[in-house]
């Protein structure tokens, strides 16, 4: 199960809308079981059907998380014309079995699809998403 606060959820959705019709991608860092920040990343592919985090930006962000004692919680990206479900490409490339893979679809203007998955050894398992208004 993925539990995030409303602000984290809103930031991910806003990023996906902002970059539409290109796919958006980013991370959520965590410490002590709580999201600490949303990191909107550059989609180096700038494509409506593909995303790839800029490698140097990725290294910088992962080093920053290490220095801050944070772990990776979520890897998110958007699909801009298809459902919020990992594609064959997503599954083949997925290299973070410890992360929650969040998919957001922006195919409808008036409706958000926000789903979370584990992708381990090419096996996809959907998990429930709980959004809390705020942490205590």
């Amino acid at each position, binding site marked *: 199960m993925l539990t995030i606060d409303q602000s984290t959820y809103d930031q991910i959705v806003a990023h996906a809308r902002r970059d539409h019709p290109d*796919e958006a*991608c980013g*991370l959520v860092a965590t410490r002590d079981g709580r999201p600490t920040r949303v990191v909107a*990343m550059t989609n180096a*592919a700038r*494509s*409506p*059907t*593909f*995303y*790839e*985090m800029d*490698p*140097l930006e*990725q*290294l910088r962000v*992962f080093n920053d998380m290490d220095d801050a004692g944070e772990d990776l919680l979520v*890897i998110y*990206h958007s*699909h*801009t*014309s*298809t459902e919020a479900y*990992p*594609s064959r*490409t*997503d599954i083949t*490339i*997925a*290299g*973070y*079995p*410890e992360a929650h893979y969040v998919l957001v679809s922006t195919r409808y203007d008036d409706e958000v699809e926000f789903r979370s998955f584990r992708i381990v050894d090419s096996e996809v398992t959907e998990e429930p998403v709980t959004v809390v208004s705020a942490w205590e």
Partner: protein
Amino acid sequence: MPVQVRIPTILRRYTDEARVVEGKGETLGDLFLDLDARFPGIRGDLVSEAGGLARFVNIYVNDEDVRFLGGLEAPIAEGDTVTILPAVAGGSR
């Protein structure tokens, strides 16, 4: 000439869950051979059968992407840190 190698979660199955291991070699290619001798199988996830770098794995020497340092020919020196990060990528097709 030991260098520190930072191992991502997905490859820790080869390193008995170690996050950082030491290795040696004059080039990145040598380093991977050295690692594979002690952690059998790890090289197969980093290098293609044709002998190139795996497409969706990013490897850095210190703060530089090895794709701009000669790939497997990238020189390694004592005290360097080599970081391995799976690419974060995908697509809707």
